[in-house]
C-alpha cells in the first residue's frame, strides 16, 4: 500500500468541473433560445415639411382602412379575418401593388387610416403585412 502523499500547496486546475459548468451554460442557452421573445421594430414616417422649389415625386398611394371590429379594408374590399394576425390576402395584394409601382418607376406608398377604436394590434398586423411586401413608405392619416 502506497503512503498518502502530502497535499500540494499550489492550487491545481481541475478540468472536469470547468467542462461541467460549460456544458450547463450551453444547455441553458440551448433550452432558452427557443423561448426568447425578441423585440423588433416596424417603421413609419410622419409627414414632413416640404421644401419650396424642390421637385417632389408623387408616389402611388393606397389607403388601408382599419375598422373598430378589426376588419381591414382596401379599395372597398375586406381582407382576411379579423381573428388572425396573419394577413396572406393583404400581403399578396400589396406585393402586386409594389411590383406594379416598380414597373411604373414610381414609389409605392401605403397610408393607414384606422378608426378611433381600432385595436393597436390590428395596426401592427397591417404594418407587418407592409413589411412582408417590402413597402418602405408607410404613413398614417391623423383623425
Amino acid at each position, binding site marked *: 500500500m502506497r503512503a498518502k502523499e502530502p497535499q500540494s500547496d499550489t492550487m*491545481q486546475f481541475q478540468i472536469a468541473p470547468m467542462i461541467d459548468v460549460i456544458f450547463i451554460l450551453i444547455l441553458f442557452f440551448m433550452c432558452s433560445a427557443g423561448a426568447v421573445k425578441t423585440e423588433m421594430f416596424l417603421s413609419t414616417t410622419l409627414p414632413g415639411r416640404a421644401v419650396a422649389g424642390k421637385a417632389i415625386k408623387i408616389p402611388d398611394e393606397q389607403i388601408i382602412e382599419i375598422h373598430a371590429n378589426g376588419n381591414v379594408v382596401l379599395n372597398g374590399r375586406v381582407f382576411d379575418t379579423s381573428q388572425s394576425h396573419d394577413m396572406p390576402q393583404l400581403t399578396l395584394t400589396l406585393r402586386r401593388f409594389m411590383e406594379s409601382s416598380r414597373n411604373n418607376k414610381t414609389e409605392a406608398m401605403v397610408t393607414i387610416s384606422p*378608426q378611433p377604436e381600432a385595436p393597436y394590434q390590428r*395596426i401592427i398586423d397591417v404594418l407587418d403585412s407592409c413589411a412582408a411586401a417590402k413597402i418602405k413608405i408607410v404613413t398614417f392619416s391623423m383623425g
Partner: protein
Amino acid sequence: MRMRRHHHEEDLEFQIAPMVDVLLVILVFFITITSASTLQGDRNIKLPVAANAMKPAKTVNEVLLNVHWESGEGKVSVDSVQFTDLSNLTGHLIARVGGRTTYRMIIRADRTTPARYIQKVMAAAANADIPDVVFTAINHD
C-alpha cells in the same frame, strides 16, 4: 519519454487568462442582446406580435415611449416621467430633441391600446418635429 510526460502533468496549473476570456465573451454576449432601449422597456406592457418586424439601422438620437392602456385609461412614460395629459408630452419631447434634425421615436404600446390614443402620441411626435417613428413588436406570443 515517460519521465517527460510526468513532468508535463506536474506543470498543469490553473490558467486565469482563458477563464477571463470566456467570462468576457459571455459578458459581451449579454451586453449585445441587451440594448439600451430594452433596459428602458416596461415589462408590464403586452406588446403586439409581428413576424416580419426587423431591427432598424442604429441611431444615436432616439427616445423610447412606453404606452400603457388599462381600464380605458392611457398613460405614457418617457425617461421615468409619466404623462397622463399628452399636451405636456410635446414640451418634454421638444426639450429632448433639442433642435436636432434626425431623431427617432420608439413606441412600445400595449396591444389593446385604441388607435385614437396612438394617434395622439404620434401627433405629439409630429409637433416635436420627429418624423421617424418606429413601433415595437415581439416575434411571437
